[in-house]
């Protein structure tokens, strides 16, 4: 458990953040493997000249235009120099009460259990960075009667539609889905 602080109406709210809840810890998981005569195979990289490389032979590097590896770089967001935001464990994260129905438009990527949080039940808008980052993540603190969760993800934009549908509103990029092979067995 890690200590985390929030600020609600100017007052400090202390809590403890548990480990991220993984789907595989709740339901198990599946893995797709390639087999030849019941022998599991390993995936490698085939080059155009016929050479086969293993994963251990490939590395990733960040290079400048001259081919020099770079450690520190200037980061710009929308053409403006970006500022590194502190980790949520180093600041008091603001809380703002919002309606529970807000979650209908919030796509959760990760969630963590939160303990010892002493505020009224409800949904609170906040933000969360596990580590220092240039782009803080959107988050909500959901306080139930028996426990609380920190939900991290992304808000989507919805619209009321009438007789005329403005289809250009929905002209969104299709996001790549993680390929999860486990058949869902929640119920």
């Amino acid at each position, binding site marked *: 458990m890690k200590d985390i602080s929030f600020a609600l109406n100017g007052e400090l709210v202390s809590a403890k953040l548990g480990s991220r809840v993984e789907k595989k810890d709740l339901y198990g998981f599946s893995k797709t493997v390639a087999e030849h005569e019941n022998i599991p195979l390993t995936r490698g990289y085939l080059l155009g000249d016929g050479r086969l490389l293993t994963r251990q032979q*490939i590395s990733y590097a960040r290079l400048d235009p001259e081919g020099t590896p770079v450690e520190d770089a200037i980061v710009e967001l929308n053409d403006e120099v970006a500022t590194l935001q502190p980790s949520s464990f180093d600041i008091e994260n603001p809380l703002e009460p919002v309606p529970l129905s807000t979650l209908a438009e919030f796509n959760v990527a990760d969630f963590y259990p939160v303990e010892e949080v002493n505020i009224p039940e409800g949904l609170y808008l906040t933000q969360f960075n596990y580590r220092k980052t240039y782009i803080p993540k959107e988050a909500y603190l959901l306080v139930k009667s028996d426990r609380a969760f920190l939900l991290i993800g992304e808000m989507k934009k*919805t619209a009321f539609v009438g007789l005329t549908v403005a289809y250009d509103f929905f002209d969104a990029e299709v996001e790549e889905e993680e390929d999860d092979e486990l058949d869902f067995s929640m119920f």
Partner: protein
Amino acid sequence: MDTILHLEYQGKTARVSLQALPRRRSKPAIRQSTTVGNIMPYKLINGINAAIDPFQSKPEDFINFDPELVLDNAGQILEPEMISAAYYNPSDRLTQEELKPVTDFKFVDIIYDAEGKEKERRPHAIRKSNLNDRLPIKTGKRLPIAQAFTSFVFRHTHQIVHEDGVTMEFLFNIAQELHQNQEVAIVGAGAKGNQPLVIREKGTPYRGFLYGEIGTGEDEGKYKLLLLLSDRELKTVEE
């Protein structure tokens, strides 16, 4: 994304449009640079000799030589179009020149339980989208909104919109009933309406929930009907 959803509600069915939604906060354009210019990520050959077996090697091999390195192509940048996936037998302790891809193989799904123990093996299943099948997606049990939003993790949201006046009335009525009762409706595929939804080919299966709102004020006469997709409950392992 524009997908057709074959939806059933109170005995009536209609084919309506399922739309992906834009982000409320647009993703910033990220640029990393130095005084020399923009930084780009690259994949490259690192010069490691993957054919070496450390358990068969002796210390003097590494003292006198560098058998762990093959520097001929070290540093070569690999463009994405230069590479394709291939599978090989890892137990073949062959030299680099003889490392060959296996052409005759099959994909197998191995299912593990929550403790990581293998439960089942089966041929790899490729899922197809089931949103627009002959059998419609059925609406089933209702749950209070508060219970649904505090019990399930919603991973994706899509909006259902009409194609014409008839389907607008169909969807408006669904949204109105859900809004008035402050409920969500569980939806499912298959003959009994209890199968998870698969949105796209090779996609992940999800449980579906319908959420509806009716507009007021300047949105009077308008509706909002969302398909919420969940693949897990909002709980910890201990619960």
